[in-house]
């Protein structure tokens, strides 16, 4: 049964240095508040997993909290590059980062395998591209027809963190709008945290809503506005202007650090500088 705690406590109880952590939310419901709490608590050496790293992982990579990134699309949607991600891959700044990349379909199926507690999922894809040779997939023959397919290994994050619109006092969660891979991410993980816009007396299931029962979640924490500058449909709006502004903030290392420092997301401590 999910325990209702503060965001600080939820992160402190679940995420340790070196863990593999998936903060999911496909362009919608991105758990920014939880990611920022992780930075405030100074978590390091993380393996960050996320289909679309987005601004949140750009920030986390930019302060050097990640040793490894597993992803499928590392851009600022509709704007352009994620400059901190690029700087880490291209120049090793502020540290070199190991990368494992997939297609969206591959990542989605990896989460499905994880949630299903299966070792892998089978799909058509990767063949005939250069991705296959640069990532962790294997060819597999269909036992019925012999067709050559691709096996993608299960994702089993140590911790998955997602954001939703609401939870009740038992920690049952409901989200609606673009559902992404949040349910799969929670079910695939060893430990899970859900942040919510609001705590309600009773969850009233909505048509098209996704309900995640409290008994598969470890911690629920109230975090109003916790997905900004992403959004929670029906409650907050996507801050498209900030997505555009981030391009200029993140382009320059000093400006980026100043921005993070002002918000208590970077203290300058513990970073190993690598000359670029």
């Amino acid at each position, binding site marked *: 049964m999910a325990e209702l705690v503060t965001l600080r406590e939820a992160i402190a109880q679940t995420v340790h240095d070196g863990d593999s952590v998936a903060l999911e939310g496909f362009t919608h419901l991105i758990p920014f508040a939880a990611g920022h709490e992780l930075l405030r608590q100074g978590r390091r050496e993380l393996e960050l997993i996320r289909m679309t790293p987005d601004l949140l992982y750009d920030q986390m990579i930019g302060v050097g909290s990640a040793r490894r990134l597993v992803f499928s699309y590392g851009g600022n949607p509709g704007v352009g590059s994620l400059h901190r991600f690029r700087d880490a891959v291209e120049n090793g700044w502020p540290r070199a980062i190991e990368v494992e990349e997939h297609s969206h379909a591959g990542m989605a*199926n990896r989460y499905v395998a994880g949630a299903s507690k299966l070792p892998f999922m089978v799909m058509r894809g990767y063949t*005939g591209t250069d991705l296959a040779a640069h990532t962790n997939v294997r060819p597999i023959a269909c036992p019925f027809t012999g067709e050559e397919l691709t096996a993608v290994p299960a994702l089993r994050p140590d911790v998955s963190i997602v954001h939703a619109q609401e939870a009740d006092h038992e920690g049952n969660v409901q989200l609606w709008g673009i559902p*992404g891979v949040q349910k799969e991410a929670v079910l695939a993980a060893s430990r899970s945290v859900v942040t919510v816009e609001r705590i309600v007396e009773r969850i009233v299931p909505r048509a098209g809503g996704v309900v995640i029962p409290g008994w598969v979640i470890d911690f629920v924490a109230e975090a109003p506005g916790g997905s900004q500058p992403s959004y929670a449909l029906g409650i907050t709006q996507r801050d498209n202007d900030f997505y555009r502004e981030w391009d200029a903030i993140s382009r320059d290392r000093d400006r980026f650090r100043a921005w993070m420092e002002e918000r208590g997301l970077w203290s300058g401590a513990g970073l190993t500088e690598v000359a670029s």
Partner: protein
Amino acid sequence: MTANGETAEYSGGELQTIVAARTLIGKRSCFIGVGRPSTAALLARMVHNPKLVLVYESGTIGAKPYRVPLSIGDGELAETADLVVSVPEMFNYWIGPGQVQVAFLGAAQVDPQANLNSTVIGDYRHPKTRLPGAGGAPEIATGCEEVVVIAPHSTRTFVPRLDFKTTRGERTTTVITDLGVLTPIEGELTLTAIHPGVTVEQAREHTGWDLRVADNVQVSAAPTAEELTALRELVSR
């Protein structure tokens, strides 16, 4: 640049969008990303094909946005969609099995077989430019019946060899640039149309390989007043 010199009444980019929208005449459904493909598909719904089903990989099927969305996850897409599905469902039930007819894709590099690179420029381990990566493109390009590529016509984009093959080109039927239209003929992209005011030589100069030219190169029809008015109204929203 403009498509037909100093007296041009529309830009090369506007014509590119309008030509892309025309490829959706008579089509059932189209998969689109953000930027020019999204503008073109919304334009197609306005002037050519009001029943066209727009599919965004964020999970929104049948989205009817009033404004061109900045991201594929903008709230308006979910609010106006016929159905909203999870990412695994999107790829496993809808895109992979070919339920979506046409796909619009972009890329940083396009080769003569219409294979696409959106991963890296330079060496994979030590890239000169790290691009966003595959996203949904590889499975979209093998799942949808036909692929329309929209890209700027330059020697940087149209290269003889990709630095990284992210996405396969077999299903590409049309490549629309700001200079003209390329179509695969006998497995190689061939210039089949130029936009008004553009010369064949210009298109060849802006291609990084010795571009084949069709025997009877067409000239794209100039935008109609209806197309141009609708496009400008759409982007001003």
